[in-house]
C-alpha cells in the first residue's frame, strides 16, 4: 500500500514535470503562426475613397 502510493506520487510528479516542460518549450520556441504568404498592404486610394 505504502510503496504503491509512493510510486503513484512519483509517476504523477514525473508526468506533471514532463507536461510543464513540453508546454514551456512550445510556448517559448513556438513560432505562433505563419505570416501571410501572398498579398500585401497598400494605401487606400482611388475607388477606395469614392
Amino acid at each position, binding site marked *: 500500500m505504502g510503496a504503491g502510493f509512493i510510486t503513484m506520487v512519483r509517476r504523477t510528479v514525473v508526468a506533471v514535470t514532463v507536461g510543464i516542460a513540453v508546454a514551456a518549450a512550445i510556448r517559448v520556441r513556438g513560432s505562433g503562426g505563419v505570416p*501571410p504568404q501572398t*498579398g*500585401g*498592404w*497598400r494605401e*487606400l486610394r482611388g475607388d477606395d475613397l469614392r
Partner: protein
Amino acid sequence: MSQILLFGAGATGSRVARQLRSTGLIDALEVRDANEERLDALAASFDGWVTRGVGRRIEGRYDAVVLATPPGSQVALARRGVHAGVPVITTSNQTSEVRRLLALDDEAAYHEVPVVVGAGFMPGLTCLLARHGARDYDEVDEIHVAKVGTGGPACASQHHRALSSTGVDWRDGRWMRRAGGSGRELAWFPDPVGGRDCYRAALPDPLLLVGHFDGVQRVTARQAATRRDRLTAPLPMLRRPHPEGGIGAVRVELRGRVGVERRISVFGAVERPAVAAGAMATAVTLEVLRGRIAHGAAGLAGVADTVSMLDTLAAQGVKPVRFEGITTFV
C-alpha cells in the same frame, strides 16, 4: 471665425493643437491643462495662435471643445460642453467612461449638439475604418479590431490597466464578459509592425461598433502585449511610462456577405498613436465645424461620410491601408 477649446496639453493634446493649426481653418485655439509648465511650453511654441485658459467652465462662444485629458476625466467636461451648447469631441479609451459618454446621448440630442465618443487611434480610426470597409458588404457578420502601442503616459497607464481588467465581446447577439489577458491571437499589422500576439482587454470598441451594424454576430477587440506585459498587468506599473510610446498600429478585420459570397477584408494604419489620435481628433473637429456630424452621443462607426475624414487624415500624414491578397470563399 472658428474658435476651438482644447482640454489637455499632453502628447495627444499637443498633436491636436499642431494639426488644427496646420489645417489653416481654425482662427483661434484656447488650451487648458492643470500642468502649467506643459501649458506654457505648448503656448510658447505657437506665435500667439494658442491662448492659455484656466478652469473647467465652458462658455457657449466656442465652436467645438476637444477633450484630450487622461481617461476618467472627460465625462464631466463633456456634460459641461453639452449644456453650453458646444459640440464635444472626446478621445477616451476607457470602457467605463465610454459607456458614460454614450449615455449623454439624450442630453446631447436635447441640446442639439454632437458628442463624438472616442475620436482617437483606437477607438476612433478603427470605428471609421470599420464603417468605411462595411460599404463593400451586403451584410457584416464579424468585426475584429486590434491595436499595438500607446501614446502618452496617460494612454500607457490605461493600456496597462486594460490588460488586467474585464473586457466585453459581442457574440451571437449578446454581450460576453471576457477576462483581460486571455484569448491570445496572432494578428498581422501593417509593416513595419508585423505580427503581434494580441489579447482581450478592457477596450471600448465593441460598445462603439455594435449599434451601428445591424445583424453583426461577433465584435471583439484586442491589444498587443508581451509576456512581461501579461505577467505584470495585475501589478501597479513598475516604472513611469515613457513620455511617448513608439510606433503603433491598428487593424480592423471585417467578415461578411457580398451577394452569395463570403468575404474577409482587413484594414489598418501605422503611426505613433498620439500623432494618429491628434490627426483623428482634428479630422473629426473639421467635420463637426462643417455640420456633418449628427446630434447626440455616438462613436465614429455611425458617420455617413467616411471619405471626407479619411482625406483629412491623409492630409495630416495618417494614411490607412488595406490588405490585398486574402482569398474570398463561397
